[in-house]
């Protein structure tokens, strides 16, 4: 018993693990809340596009010797807003707009990196994430931005919901739909910014999608979907860090696999909607 408690406590006796836990839990919670809108609008693609496009900004910042995070943040926001701008013209489909913008940003990043002969290891922490390496400054920045995102969603929940559900009716009742659409894109952009450091370009998408998708299988309304998604995200962060600690594997990958594990559990066992549930129903019916 004491043995077990010791095993559970051990990772958190290290300060870098404490920082990792705070950052990972916070990022997962914010990503689940914002990600709920992402999956409902079928915008999962954007969750992949923003981190990739932000690589362009990181590379430019790297080449010019600026702060890499700032470069990534500016690029993610610019990408989010230009996707909104292109899509609102209505002449190309949303996913096409996203595809074009994101490929341009990512390609620009690769192009710039290919011109750099020096030390590019820093860039790899952006590609694969480096949650065990976050500093207290990073943690406080994540806390600040995360709180800002959650407060913005809480304040404008009603408008964001209406705009996501039925934009033309929302506009007809006087909701500033354009502002809400750009606002949501900016919030997704900011979420990507704080998630990049923890998860890395390749895995940010998973935290935007897997926890809310799990929650969607378990509830029929948006507020509990966000809450359950946040819980699933937080548990994935915790579980993933344990796995990373004891199995000595990549923390971001362990977090993502824990989250997708939750998804498959819900997919199989969700009351009423899970695969096994439906199967059992069919079996009892035919029996």
């Amino acid at each position, binding site marked *: 018993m004491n043995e077990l408690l010791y095993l559970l406590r051990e990772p958190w006796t290290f300060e870098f693990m404490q920082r990792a836990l705070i950052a990972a839990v916070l990022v997962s919670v914010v990503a689940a809340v914002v990600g709920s809108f992402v999956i*409902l609008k079928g915008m999962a693609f954007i969750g992949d596009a923003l981190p990739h496009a932000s690589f362009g900004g990181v590379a430019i910042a790297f080449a010019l010797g600026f702060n890499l995070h700032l470069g990534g943040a500016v690029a993610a926001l610019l990408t989010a807003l230009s996707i909104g701008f292109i899509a609102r013209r209505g002449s190309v489909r949303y996913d096409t707009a996203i595809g074009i913008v994101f490929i341009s940003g990512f390609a620009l990043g690769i192009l710039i990196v290919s011109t750099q002969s020096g030390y590019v290891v820093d860039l790899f922490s952006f590609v694969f994430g480096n949650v065990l390496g976050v500093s207290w400054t990073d943690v406080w920045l994540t806390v600040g931005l995360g709180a800002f995102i959650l407060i913005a969603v809480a*304040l*404008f929940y*009603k*408008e964001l*919901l*209406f705009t*996501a*559900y*039925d934009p*033309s*009716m*929302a*506009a*007809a*009742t*006087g*909701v*500033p739909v354009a502002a809400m659409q750009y606002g949501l894109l900016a919030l997704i952009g900011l979420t990507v910014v704080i998630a990049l450091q923890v998860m890395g370009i390749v895995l940010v998408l998973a935290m935007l999608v897997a926890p809310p998708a799990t929650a*969607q299988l378990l*509830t*029929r*309304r*948006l507020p509990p*979907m966000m809450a359950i998604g946040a819980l699933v995200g937080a548990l994935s962060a915790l579980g993933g860090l344990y796995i990373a600690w004891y199995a000595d594997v990549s923390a971001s990958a362990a977090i993502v696999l824990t989250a997708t594990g939750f998804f498959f559990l819900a997919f199989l066992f969700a009351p009423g909607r899970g695969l096994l549930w439906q199967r059992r129903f069919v079996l009892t019916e035919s029996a």
Partner: protein
Amino acid sequence: MPDNSPAFVPAVEVRNLSAGYNGHVALEDVTFSVERGCLAGLVGPNGSGKSTLLRVMLGLHKPWRGEVRISGPPGRSGRGHIGYMPQSELVDWSFPITVVDVVLMGRYGRVGLIRRPGGRDREIAMAALERVHLAHLAQRRIGELSGGEQRRMLIARALAQEADLVLLDEPLAGLDATAQHDLLRLLEELRREDKTLFVATHDLSCVAANFDHAVLLNRKVVAFGRPSEVFTEQLLAAAFQRHLLVLPGGERTLVGP
């Protein structure tokens, strides 16, 4: 034409309106007005511009030329105070949201930015659901409604807006005979409450039998006036490009191919 009578108070006036999509003309020089407190029908073949006209009136689609003038009590004539029921094919039925939540959205325009709808708004939403006989499904997820129930939910949302002018896009389509009858009753009730209702529909017989005015549209306004004046075989043939029979039978006028 009704606008010659001195007592005519227009709730909405549309003047020389032209609109369309990427160079494609959907509405051309449309002019008409709808009297306050009346039940007006908007009829025309598929693609004649009915939905486009309603969307322009709501300010959802920018017209190329012309104007829409909405009159109402002072301070309440803004477009946020027009009730609207969209054609239900345009709604995302997979969204995780309950019936009463959708109806509550009708209140958002009044509640204002950031603030939450209160108990009063919930009462109004529930009352609207009761008027369309849907109160028992208030907590259902919208994807689990039948086609007719979906339409009634959208009507309830338009009611919850408590607007003086309500635009409805094909509210009768897909309703069974009793539901159609109930809806007509409801529209008549609303008219008695001095609301103005402008209804796009394909049910010509229903307009002929129950409505005060009709606008016959096919990109242009083919005719506008009392249904008995509008639903003549010549005018209908001009709008629908084929011959339709009009069988006036006292109370009931039947229109059909």
